[in-house]
């Protein structure tokens, strides 16, 4: 049996390094110091041997832990069943991104739908202007004769600014006779209308013009292109009437009747382009300077209203 030369202070210092020495984590200088000490200290050498033996026994025991049969195959199978990895994050993140995109697209679609609905409401409110004049003046007021007034009389009623439009309306409303043409307004509004009351196809049809005063039909999907492609039409069914509207530089035009929607549109499609050309050429540029009696319908008279 060897006699151990145990130096408490020095051995304590070396043994504090033994774990790192065993793991090969010491600096070269410290390793040299440990080795020098071990050469002369049997107690620390035995301690290192004991620690090494335990570590080696642990390694050997750990290696005895063999994965069970079938675990590897089970993992392989599960891996192939799973979705592979995702770029930019986990599948959860991908779902979150997809959800955000759906929300954004949904918001855009909702926004567009609301815009269309808003546009339709604006169109309806503008077309209601024309419909109300047709209903109030032509139908309820019955401000037209059974036999058409002579053209000269109608031209006088329209005044020099709009007299020229009579011919445009007559020529582009085949099958319709112009019974009356005048400038009028409806109760409760200061808006003035150039109103042509016509008869044809067994019904009364109005062609109405009024200043847009800078307002416009909404842009977007609310309109329907005419056959010529030069005019866009806006449609609505109001108060039992079908109305087709269009616009020139300064005017809104309306064709209103109780004919079907397609027929009304077809009639408007023939009339609107030449009427728009005439309006844009200036034949209506000085219109509506008269101030008819507020709230009263202008009765058709033998002479044109004072402009």
């Amino acid at each position, binding site marked *: 049996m060897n006699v151990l030369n145990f130096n408490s202070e020095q051995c304590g210092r070396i043994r504090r390094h033994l*774990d790192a020495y065993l*793991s090969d984590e010491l600096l070269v200088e410290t390793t040299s110091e440990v080795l020098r000490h071990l050469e002369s200290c049997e107690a620390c050498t035995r301690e290192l041997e004991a620690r090494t033996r335990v570590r080696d026994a642990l390694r050997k025991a750990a290696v005895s*832990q063999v994965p069970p049969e079938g675990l590897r195959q089970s993992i392989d199978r599960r891996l192939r069943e799973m979705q592979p990895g995702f770029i930019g994050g986990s599948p959860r993140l991908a779902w979150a991104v997809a959800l955000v995109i759906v929300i954004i697209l949904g918001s855009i679609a909702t926004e567009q739908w609301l815009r269309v609905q808003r546009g339709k409401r604006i169109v309806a409110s503008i077309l209601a202007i024309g419909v109300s004049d047709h209903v109030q003046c032509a139908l309820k007021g019955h401000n037209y004769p059974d036999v058409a007034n002579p053209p000269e009389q109608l031209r006088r009623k329209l005044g020099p600014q709009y007299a020229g439009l009579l011919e445009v309306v007559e020529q582009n409303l085949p099958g319709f006779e112009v019974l009356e043409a005048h400038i009028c307004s409806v109760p409760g509004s200061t808006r003035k209308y150039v109103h042509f009351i016509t008869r044809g196809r067994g019904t009364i049809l109005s062609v109405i013009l009024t200043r847009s005063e800078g307002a416009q039909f909404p842009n977007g999907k609310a309109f329907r292109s005419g056959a010529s492609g030069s005019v866009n039409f806006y449609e609505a069914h109001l108060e039992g009437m079908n109305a087709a509207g269009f616009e020139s530089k300064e005017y809104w035009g309306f064709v209103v009747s109780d004919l079907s929607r397609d027929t009304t549109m077809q009639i408007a499609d023939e009339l609107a382009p030449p009427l728009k050309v005439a309006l844009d050429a200036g034949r209506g540029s000085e219109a509506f300077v008269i101030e008819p009696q507020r709230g009263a319908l202008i009765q058709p008279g033998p002479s044109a209203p004072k402009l």
Partner: protein
Amino acid sequence: MDLFFHRKLRVEDFEAAAMPHFPDLYRTARLLAQGSTEAEDLVQDVYLEAWKSFHRFQTGTNCRAWLFKILFHRLHHFRRRWAKAAKVEAFEGPEDQDSLIAEIPVPQEIRDEDVLQALGKVPIEYRKVVLLADVQEFSYKEIAETMKLPLGTVMSRLSRGRKLLRQELAGIARAFGIRPASDPPRPGESA
């Protein structure tokens, strides 16, 4: 859309990188889990988790360390299902000089089952570090990164873990009448 969400990663590439470490992962899991079933669940979970995040793994880096990091991360969740382990805090603190110098007898014959039994009695936080250092031969730095611990804590846990293992081993040896290696041989025995 596909390009943004979904890059086709080949499971064969993943397996080529990750499966060579399967035995080591299983061994470590088996020595940290309560039973073989738990270890199998844990290892399977580690591989599925690794596959899911394989796109984040940089080819050429240390796949083994990456897998062990996942192992310990998943172990944390699995342990909630298992029995609570002994609290580490009760064992941590500076070593006193006596405990450093005092020799713990080591049995002459160390059987695998004795080591495994003794290891099972070492609190799990120490066991993890001992397994990584002594079985998997991770460096201190790798252990610190894998377990997200300061280097000093790794060193102290390793030192204390080894000592606890040795103490448990000595206790088991005594219980079975196995003579410590430091005991002088009895008359008639060879040294």
